[in-house]
């Protein structure tokens, strides 16, 4: 909106005014037109005249209070004047006579003074003034906002308006006007940056008054409705400015409470979100757009979140970083963290869904990074958040769905850090592969052997006839005579229409219920699960009767279907291939900038040695639990201290940098002290607790260290060379700052350093104090201390002392760590030696080891590598780009030696692993990490899982399988690769599932009846997702038993103890139990064989809904599982085929 160009309608000079004096009664619109038509001189006269009249009242009224009439008079005259002013043209860039007069006589100032004197009419006058300014700013043809005489009263007015006033009726209107004017000012500023200076540094040197319009806008950040929207728009304009004018950025970051307010507001809004969401339907797994619209609070929160996102996008780096910092410390850690760990399962589920939604909503890399860092490395109550999230994959309620969805979102980001934490960290050492096979990780499956294997695993029960007759015509058993789209489409080579058509029929990616984001991110979500065989294709059962009933049954359901159904012949494999290619290409492209190809050599297997190794180290765990625990705390804190000092140094560098940035106009000199204040404040606020904790940790470590080393001293010496050598080099790091100087300096602008700082900050006290209010309070305090910036001097001196204390402590911590180092490594060596001896013995049978795994409570499964996850991740994230040896060693130094591995299943069998001989490979126990383990565990239970869970699960795995990196690809898709006995491959898992399904199918009488029905249901589901307009027959899904089984599932609490007595539960087998995958599956089947058959036989024909909801649900789950498994295998096969072909594509993995 251009304020110096007036709308052209008013532009006409030639005419002479007829009437020089306007009467108060004259209408506003009419008079303005008249005025505009008059010649400048006349206008000037009229203007002076009005002023005189107004002045009469003003002068008289200065003593006593004015009457309403008086006020009216003044206001009216003033309005007329302004109208004249607006119409005036400048003369060669100089002010016209009216403006000149106005400036000279300080008309605005006088008026403003008078207004502020009128207590009785304050609101009204404020409003009037705002209106006048609005008019002036938006309409004037001359540049007004550079004149002090204009700005000063304007600012005064603004300030007055901002004063808290009693909740009057007009306050909202006033706010609206105020924000409007502010917005206009911002618009002007962004168009004409000259003005910026006049607004920025008018009076106060710093503080809110320094950039008043900015400060005034801040309170409206979170307001809903048009006011808030306009305020946010205005702020964004200023943010954009800050990117160009660094001093603005500095001001915002250092002198304003913009970032804190924004972040705190986020917390506030979050706290008003519904704590529980009632899922609209059974297959709900993520918040969708419609959910957002339905929940008003959520909409508000998202508005603010998106505003943050926008700010991060446009603002000055300082502002951006600060905002992110506050979001991290003020929202993520203290609010979202606890929210994810509430007691109520529903609340946790809701919070997880929120997190998922947020991750999908934000788009700015820096912000995403903060969120990811939170998810990946932050802890709550000493437990890594990521860890608890992973644990929930095994959960049994809706939480499972939501968690899977969250992980799908994460995996779908193609983010190296995420994948590193979830997957690659564990795969890099290659411990899961047989030693002799490790070189084969990169091998490509050129001849589709894997695909063949996958396809061969399709459950017998849903395989079509081998059907020799249709074979010559098409792949699928398309019934001869029926016009099949495939066949017709085939005549045109490569016909897109064919693809499109069959897509619309069976498996379009879009039928996914796309949550929120428009992009096809969840393409494969509900897609693989399509069913694409003809109904005629009956299970390969001998019993003709069975097949007959099948078709009869389907007839019953919908008579029209069978004919139509015949047209979904198996065109789908092509769909899968196309889809696979699209996903692969997109993923490969997205991952092109990853730092390493993850092909088993880069990074080298020993790159992450520090993580898995410890898992071996605790072969003799039982004794050491306490010791390791305390050691852990010692490690943790020492690490804190270490990185603290680093941060400290970075910080001081930053101030140096600011100083050297001195070319910043005037206020530059103000900043350094401020930033010092910031840091010292935070330090002094947070430190005490941290420091004391640190001390405690130290002691513990000190106490523990020696005993540890004495307890196992076997080959400590030799190991010392190996292990601590790196750490010792790292130890020498702190003293010579010269080296780091550059590095730190360079990463100064990096978010990482910032976040590292944050991490430390709240590792201390806050993270454990969970309540929202508390954390908000503390944040508030922080803010206050930030904004009130007296005594910077003392603070900085205080800071120095704190600093000194810290660094000395850090030294302590490190040395204590060093002391424990050898102890650890000696552990390692003992374990190694035992394993060496054991390696001659036979490998443990896979079953036994897997039993070990399943015997563990799921929690421990998820729990295990947690500690090192965070730390390894942290160091890695700290230096994602420059992975110098230096960094590596630091990583090692910081590693807490993963005490969490105590419960790791792998550690049980550690001693029994054959000892790898390859030089570069670690001898750690096979380990695929908690995430993959959880996912696989869940997969193994596919038969018992609900349909929806399986849909999400399979799509998650397929998405993982789309990553081009050989380590992951070979792990999931290469069936030729031989894994360590304790590691189950995907193929093994799926074969066992298939086994179960087939067994179940054989023992269940009407399974063959259910299969086609289930197909039909899936088909209908697909159609409803595709064409939502059609009536959703969702309720048919379980044949009318929809809600009942669901309830059963929900109420069933997964309790680990039960599992032990599983044998007792012979008949009534518990349907879903996380973790009890394998062994239990067998038993289940036995159950079926034993009791189920006869039982089932009795009421075979009809769906025996009435008998037992549990049985019923189990049956349906199994049926859906069979179908899903078939489709899933096809999808995997397609992915595997595409991998073999895509590999050599340009830019696949550029190394």
């Amino acid at each position: 909106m251009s304020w110096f160009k007036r709308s052209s309608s008013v532009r006409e000079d030639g005419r002479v005014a007829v009437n020089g004096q306007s009467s108060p009664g004259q209408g506003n619109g009419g008079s303005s037109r008249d005025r505009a038509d008059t010649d400048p001189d006349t206008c000037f006269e009229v203007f002076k005249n009005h002023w005189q009249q107004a002045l009469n009242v003003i002068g008289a009224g200065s003593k006593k209070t004015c009457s309403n009439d008086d006020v009216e008079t003044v206001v009216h005259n003033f309005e007329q004047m302004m109208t004249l002013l607006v119409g005036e043209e400048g003369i060669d860039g100089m002010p016209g006579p009216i403006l000149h007069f106005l400036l000279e006589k300080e008309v605005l100032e006088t008026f403003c003074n008078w207004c502020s004197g009128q207590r009785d009419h304050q609101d009204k006058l404020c409003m009037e003034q705002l209106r006048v300014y609005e008019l002036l700013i938006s309409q004037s043809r001359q540049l007004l906002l550079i004149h002090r005489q204009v700005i000063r009263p304007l600012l005064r007015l603004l300030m007055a308006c901002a004063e808290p006033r009693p909740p009057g009726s007009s306050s909202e209107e006033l706010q609206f006007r105020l924000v409007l004017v502010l917005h206009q000012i911002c618009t002007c500023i962004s168009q004409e940056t000259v003005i910026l200076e006049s607004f920025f540094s008018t009076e106060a040197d710093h503080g809110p008054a320094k950039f008043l319009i900015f400060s005034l806008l801040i309170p409206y950040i979170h307001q809903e409705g048009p006011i808030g929207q306009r305020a946010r728009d205005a702020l964004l304009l200023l943010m954009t400015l800050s990117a160009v004018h660094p001093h603005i950025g500095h001001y915002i970051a250092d002198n304003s409470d913009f970032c804190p307010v924004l972040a705190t507001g986020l917390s506030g809004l979050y706290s008003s979100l519904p704590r529980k969401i009632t899922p609209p339907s059974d297959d709900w797994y993520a918040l969708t757009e419609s959910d957002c619209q339905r929940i008003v609070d959520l909409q508000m929160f998202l508005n603010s979140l998106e505003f943050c996102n926008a700010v991060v996008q446009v603002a000055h780096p300082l502002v951006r970083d600060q905002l992110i910092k506050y979001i991290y410390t003020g929202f993520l850690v203290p609010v979202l963290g606890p929210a994810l760990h509430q007691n109520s399962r529903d609340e946790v589920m809701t919070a997880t869904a929120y997190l998922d939604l947020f991750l999908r909503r934000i788009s700015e890399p820096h912000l995403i990074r903060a969120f990811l860092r939170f998810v990946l490395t932050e802890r709550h109550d000493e437990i890594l958040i990521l860890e608890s999230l992973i644990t929930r994959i095994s959960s049994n309620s809706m939480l499972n769905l939501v968690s899977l969805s969250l992980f799908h979102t994460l995996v779908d980001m193609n983010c190296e850090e995420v994948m590193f934490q979830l997957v690659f960290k564990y795969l890099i050492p290659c411990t899961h592969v047989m030693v002799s096979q490790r070189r084969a990780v990169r091998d490509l499956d050129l001849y589709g052997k894997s695909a063949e294997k996958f396809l061969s695993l399709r459950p017998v029960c849903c395989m079509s006839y081998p059907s020799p007759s249709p074979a010559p015509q098409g792949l699928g058993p398309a019934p001869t005579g029926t016009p099949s789209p495939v066949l017709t489409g085939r005549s045109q080579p490569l016909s897109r229409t064919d693809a499109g058509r069959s897509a619309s029929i069976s498996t379009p990616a879009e039928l996914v219920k796309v949550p929120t984001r428009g992009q096809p991110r969840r393409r494969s979500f509900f897609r693989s699960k399509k069913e694409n065989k003809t109904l005629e294709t009956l299970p390969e059962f001998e019993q003709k009767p069975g097949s007959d009933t099948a078709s009869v049954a389907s007839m019953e359901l919908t008579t029209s279907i069978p004919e139509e159904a015949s047209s979904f012949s198996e065109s789908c494999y092509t769909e899968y291939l196309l889809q696979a290619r699209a996903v692969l290409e997109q993923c490969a492209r997205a991952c092109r900038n990853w730092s390493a190809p993850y092909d088993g050599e880069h990074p080298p297997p020993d790159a992450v040695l520090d993580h898995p190794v410890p898992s071996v180290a605790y072969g003799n765990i039982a004794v050491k639990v306490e010791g390791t625990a305390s050691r852990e705390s010692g490690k943790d804190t020492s690490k804190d201290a270490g990185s603290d000092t680093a941060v400290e140094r970075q910080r001081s560098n930053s101030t140096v940098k600011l100083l050297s940035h001195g070319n910043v106009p005037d206020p530059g000199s103000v900043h350094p002290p401020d930033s010092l204040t910031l840091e010292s404040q935070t330090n002094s606020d947070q430190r005490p607790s941290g420091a004391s904790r640190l001390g405690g940790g130290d002691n513990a470590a000190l106490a523990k260290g020696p005993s540890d080393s004495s307890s196992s001293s076997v080959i400590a010496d030799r190991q010392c060379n190996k292990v601590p050598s790196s750490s010792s080099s790292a130890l020498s790091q702190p003293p010579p700052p010269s080296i780091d100087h550059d590095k730190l300096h360079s990463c100064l602008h990096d978010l990482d350093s910032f976040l590292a700082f944050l991490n430390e900050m709240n590792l201390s006290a806050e993270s454990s104090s969970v309540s929202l209010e508390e954390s908000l309070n503390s944040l508030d305090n922080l803010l206050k201390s930030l904004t009130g910036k007296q005594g910077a001097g003392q603070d900085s001196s205080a800071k120095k002392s704190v600093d000194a204390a810290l660094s000395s402590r850090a030294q302590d911590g490190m040395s204590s760590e060093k002391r424990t180092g050898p102890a650890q490594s000696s552990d390692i060596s003992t374990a190694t030696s035992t394993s060496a001896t054991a390696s001659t013995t036979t490998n443990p049978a896979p079953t036994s080891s897997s039993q070990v795994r399943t015997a563990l409570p799921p929690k421990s499964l998820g729990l295990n590598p947690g500690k090192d996850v965070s730390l390894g991740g942290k160091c890695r994230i700290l230096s994602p780009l420059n992975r110098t040896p230096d960094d590596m060693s630091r990583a090692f130094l910081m590693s807490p030696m993963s005490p969490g591995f105590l419960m790791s299943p792998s550690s049980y069998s550690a001693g029994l692993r054959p000892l790898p001989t390859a030089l570069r490979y670690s001898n750690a126990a096979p380990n695929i990490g908690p995430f993959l383990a959880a996912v696989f565990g869940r997969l193994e239970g596919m038969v018992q899982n609900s349909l929806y869970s399986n849909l999400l699960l399979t799509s998650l795995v397929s998405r993982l399988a789309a990553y081009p990196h050989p380590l992951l690809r070979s792990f999931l898709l290469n069936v030729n690769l031989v894994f360590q006995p304790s590691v189950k491959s995907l193929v093994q898992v799926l074969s066992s599932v298939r086994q179960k399904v087939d067994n179940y199918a054989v023992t269940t009488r009407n399974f063959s009846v259910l299969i086609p029905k289930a197909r039909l249901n899936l088909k209908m589901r697909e159609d409803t997702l595709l064409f939502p307009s059609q009536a959703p027959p969702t309720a048919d899904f379980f044949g009318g038993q929809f809600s009942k089984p669901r309830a059963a599932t929900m109420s069933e609490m997964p309790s680990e103890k039960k599992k032990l007595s599983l044998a007792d539960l012979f008949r009534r087998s518990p349907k879903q139990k996380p973790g009890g995958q394998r062994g239990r599956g067998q038993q289940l089947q036995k159950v079926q064989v034993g009791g189920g058959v006869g039982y089932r036989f009795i009421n075979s024909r009809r769906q025996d809904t009435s008998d037992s909801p549990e049985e019923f649900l189990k049956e349906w789950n199994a049926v859906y599982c069979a179908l899903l498994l078939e489709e899933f295998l096809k999808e995997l096969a397609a992915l595997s085929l595409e991998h073999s072909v895509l590999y050599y594509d340009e830019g696949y993995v550029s190394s």
Partner: protein
Amino acid sequence: MSSAQDSSTESSEALSSSPSPRLSGSGGEGRQLPSIPSSELGSAGRGNKPGSKQVPPVRGTTGYGPFLQEYSMMAEYNQLQKQKLPGVYVMPSAQSPLVWNGLLFLRQGLYQSCSLRFILTIPDNYPDGDCPDFAFEFPVFHPMVDPLSGRVDVKRAFPKWRRNVNHLWQVLMYARKIFYKIETKAPLNVEAATLYEQDTEQFRQHVAESIQTAKQRLMQPPTSDDPFALRFSPWTEPVHCEAKRQMLNSKVLYRQDSTE
């Protein structure tokens, strides 16, 4: 599919008597279809949508044999592309992924400036079957090239075809190598072998003649009726320029693509 195999070998034998029919034979027999195509053009390769595959299931019970086979071929072809064998150009047949049309340009040595069309026929149980069959359209004068059929004895280099170890590009490399490192042991063309050993001058002469004939043969339409067979047409300025321009442009595009 074994039938296809048999017939192709038959046809090639038949060819040995009369070269021209052989290609058409193999083409016709390669079962139908058309849809495969497009693709494999030089680096652009592999656009082929497998989907268009016809042919009933062969391998295993899965019924997905054709997919698997086609992907195997695509993977092999990718490998070939990666090898960038100098002077070797290959375009899979439109009719069957198991037949590759190719061109070999010899750039130095005795056979310098010789250009030969060839056909690589892959057994349909590849990679578990026998060696692929390699035959030049024109039986160039060479100890290792059958003077009648133009076949090169690939088996000699790959006595036992080993999957994952031996690849199709190696066959092509071998076929190329015989012209640079001429061997005469157990020759298919005895005359050539003898001459090479005893009268190099005359051998050269024969080769020169053979090269000339080969060139002429090259300009004639290929014996195969395959739409993707490689054809030569006389050099014309505008066509050349246009093609060159397109190639250059497409290269740029490709690069942009990859940096995207």
